[in-house]
């Protein structure tokens, strides 16, 4: 001990240094902070999709809090007397009245309301695209099944949160959607009427539902979402991020940038860009203009009534469901149950269980930290394409009336397209995706074996024309590449392996010295050049003729 106490460490001299010492003296945080800042994150654009969802949620919390200062979640009847002249004197609910006031009588209120709505659409969209990335790259495999379950739960909650949110203004469009929801509750076998009366506190619509949806929307669901996001991120940090296979990347390391400053800088930038896009959309692109739609009236409806995009597939399922009502001993199970509850129920159950299903089918119980390219797992990729196709057919059917009107197609034909397409198109998508995956796999192998097509045609002394191929690495005695496929992307063009020099920077005139760029490129000696430098030492020992093509070297052709 004594050896450690003397001499005292050097004291900081700058103000910031002194302040930092004062803080760390009280709350020892330096070690934790250093570990956090040194955490390495892999760099790939597709890893930003989940971040977009996170930032959209932050924007939703900020804008949503603002909206609660003005919104009155009550179904009390009032007469509208605000500034929007066309609706003055109309009987509306307090919820609708306060949403109009928020839009027309609060400075900037409409802007924030529209930012909130756009951010909500983006939130669900980002979650969905993030989910597809996780699925198609196999990032859900052990040890990340927990985060997959949390993610599926977050998607379902986000959709419910969105539905509760857009129902709050109590306008004609959302009221119609709520009525359809009431029919879905009512369709549940045995307990349907009890669920229906419990949810609405009596017959539809009653006087309670907006208040109930409000507390779900601003407290209960966001609190659960927030807790699950915290858990999602904690698990992510604990497990470390997955990475695509590549040079130096293994199952036991992470290659990328340290959190501070590179990753933090980029992540902060992404937050501001997402926020900026939502703000621009909120100001420039009108969304949910409830003053044009009008207050809810159970006897009225607009044609072309569509929910927000993420509920569209539920609507589509209800639309294409054939009129099959099951009647047993005088009891009814109406078709709306299958379309609106059955399809999403099956979809989310299979989705949540998929990691377990795949583990059972493949017997692969190992931990994986390296991602897979979709082409390397053709069955999973094809299954995903199949599910996605079924979803898209449902989603298109959710707007089949609009498509029928805009393209002058029979509405009934669109319904039949949905019915037949839902059965027929997914298997076709499976087969096509499977074949495409195999084709891409074969092409990867071909390039590894024979090299990249250079586009250079050479005439041999015997008159035969051949295309010159650039091998990616060492070759064996027959001119075949000896590199084996390692799950990483294979370069397919000469430019991918440095066939062209980097462009000289400068818009009107060069701002760098071309000779200096040339020198740097040679110094870097990465990629092909590094390979070539070391190729002399490999067993085939045959370097290409004088370096890469741009440097005047000529690639050699395989001999068979």
């Amino acid at each position, binding site marked *: 001990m004594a050896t450690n106490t003397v001499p005292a460490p050097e004291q900081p001299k700058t103000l910031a240094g002194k302040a930092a010492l004062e803080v760390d003296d009280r709350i020892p945080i330096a070690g934790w902070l250093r570990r956090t800042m040194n955490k390495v994150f892999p760099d790939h654009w597709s890893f930003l999709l989940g971040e977009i969802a996170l930032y959209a949620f932050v924007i939703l919390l900020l804008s949503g809090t603002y909206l609660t200062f003005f919104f009155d979640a009550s179904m009390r009847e009032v007469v509208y007397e605000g500034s929007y002249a066309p609706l003055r004197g109309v009987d509306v609910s307090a919820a609708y009245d306060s949403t109009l006031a928020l839009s027309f009588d609060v400075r900037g209120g409409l802007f924030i309301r529209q930012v909130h709505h756009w951010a909500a659409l983006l939130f669900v969209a980002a979650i969905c695209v993030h989910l597809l990335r996780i699925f198609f790259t196999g990032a859900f495999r052990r040890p990340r099944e927990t985060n997959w379950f949390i993610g599926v739960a977050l998607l379902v909650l986000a959709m419910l949160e969105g539905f509760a949110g857009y129902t709050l203004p109590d306008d004609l469009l959302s009221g119609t959607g709520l009525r359809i929801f009431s029919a879905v509750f009512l369709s549940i076998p045995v307990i349907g009427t009890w669920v229906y009366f419990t949810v609405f506190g009596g017959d539809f619509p009653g006087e309670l539902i907006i208040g109930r949806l409000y507390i779900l929307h601003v407290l209960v669901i966001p609190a659960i979402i927030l807790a699950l996001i915290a858990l999602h991120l904690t698990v992510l940090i604990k497990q470390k991020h997955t990475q695509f296979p590549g040079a130096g990347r293994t199952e036991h390391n992470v290659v990328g*940038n340290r959190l501070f400053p590179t990753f933090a800088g980029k992540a902060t930038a992404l937050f501001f860009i997402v926020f900026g896009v939502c703000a621009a959309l909120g100001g420039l692109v009108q969304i949910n203009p409830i003053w044009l739609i009008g207050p809810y009236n159970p006897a009225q409806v607009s044609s072309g009534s569509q929910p927000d995009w993420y509920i569209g597939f539920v609507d589509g399922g209800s639309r294409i469901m054939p009129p099959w009502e099951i009647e047993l001993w005088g009891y009814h199970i109406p078709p709306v149950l299958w379309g609106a509850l059955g399809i999403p129920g099956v979809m989310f159950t299979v989705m949540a269980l998929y990691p377990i299903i795949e583990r059972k089918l493949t017997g692969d119980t190992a931990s994986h930290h390296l991602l897979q390219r979709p082409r390397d797992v053709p069955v999973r990729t094809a299954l995903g394409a199949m599910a996605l196709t079924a979803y898209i057919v449902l989603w298109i059917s959710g707007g089949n009336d609009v498509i029928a009107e805009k393209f002058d197609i029979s509405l009934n034909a669109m319904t039949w397209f949905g019915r037949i397409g839902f059965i027929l198109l997914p298997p076709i998508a499976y087969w096509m995706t499977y074949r495409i995956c195999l084709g891409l796999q074969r092409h990867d192998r071909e390039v590894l074996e024979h090299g990249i097509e250079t586009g250079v045609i050479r005439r041999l002394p015997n008159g035969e024309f051949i295309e010159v191929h650039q091998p990616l690495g060492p070759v064996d005695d027959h001119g075949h590449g000896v590199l084996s496929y390692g799950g990483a992307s294979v370069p397919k063009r000469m430019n991918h392996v440095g066939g062209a020099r980097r462009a000289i920077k400068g818009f009107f005139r060069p701002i760098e010295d071309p000779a200096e760029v040339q020198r740097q490129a040679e110094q870097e000696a990465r990629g092909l050049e590094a390979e070539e430098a070391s190729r002399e030492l490999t067993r085939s020992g045959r370097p290409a003729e004088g370096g890469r093509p741009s440097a005047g070297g000529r690639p050699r052709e395989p001999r068979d």
Partner: protein
Amino acid sequence: MTTTDHRPGSTGGADVPGPLHGGPDDDYTPQQLAAMDRTELDRLGARYDAVEVLHVDPVPEPGSPLERKAARQVTLWFAIAGLSAVAFLVVYAGSNWFLPDWAWEPGDRNWSALFTPLLGVTMGLSLTAIGIGLVLYVKKLLPHETAVQDKHDGSHFDRVTTGATLVGAWHNSGLPRRKLLGGTLAFMGAALGVMLIAPLGGLIKNPNKGNPLGTTPWADGLRLLRDDGTPVRPGDQVPGSLETVFPAIPGGNSVHHSDAAVMLIRLRPDQMETLVTPAGQEDFGYGDYLAYSKICTHAGCPVSLYEQETSRILCPCHQSQFDVTQGAKPVFGPATRSLPQLPIRVDEEGYFVARSDFREPVGPSFWNMGRLN
């Protein structure tokens, strides 16, 4: 500090730095650390966190044209961000002060129509410009390093020692032996859980009290009123037309009676020729007038779109189609039941009135629909 340290500690006065903590502080003396430069210290700390910096692309040389250009770009974007934020404030606070009023007024060529778009453009540009500036900063002015960090699996030592602590406590509690206590704890937990959620039972409402799902406000002698409150008499409508009517009660056309809306349809002569009335409903109409519930039997939307040529009524929500000349039978789409028909007659003053309520439940089907009384 360790458990073997028995010195009494501070007695007040000026702060004296305490003993250094173990770990790295044992490996590196303050003098050794003081002799290192910042990069070395950074790499040393990284190594302690299992991070190795493999490669650093240098930043452009300070003062070089490339560096000056990059710095100019970054500065420009941050300046745009600041100026846009000021522009937002000017639009936001200046409207109705030195700028025109922002409050809504008719027309789309005035300041009020520009107000929200201007807020969006300025705030959107400001925030996006910050993002772009930051990206350029990171990409063009900061060194690009490639780092690699080891991933550690769970430690066997941690598992064994933690397990020993947990199992030890479980064993010491005696719960494996004390069966009655354990059983009582389980029972207590279950009862407590149910007790805590039981008050939610207050939400439950009985749907079978007074048959609310099987009845509507319609009753014998109630007039059919248009949405402006006027009664309808035969001859008011042209053949082939449809009108939405409501029961003559307070709030007949309101959210309080969401099942009350009725479509009064006057058929054309040629429709009358092909008219098929379901058994038991032959006398529900009045001449060429028929009255059907407007609430779709599929999901409860108001069926609203009447195509005279084909005698079909379309629900815009899920495209169920009902043929009014066949007792409003569903002919396409997901609906399974006909729209209920309202029996009508004409009262002494010559206005349409209902003869009774609907004979069957209005709106979507449900489990015990056929068993209501």
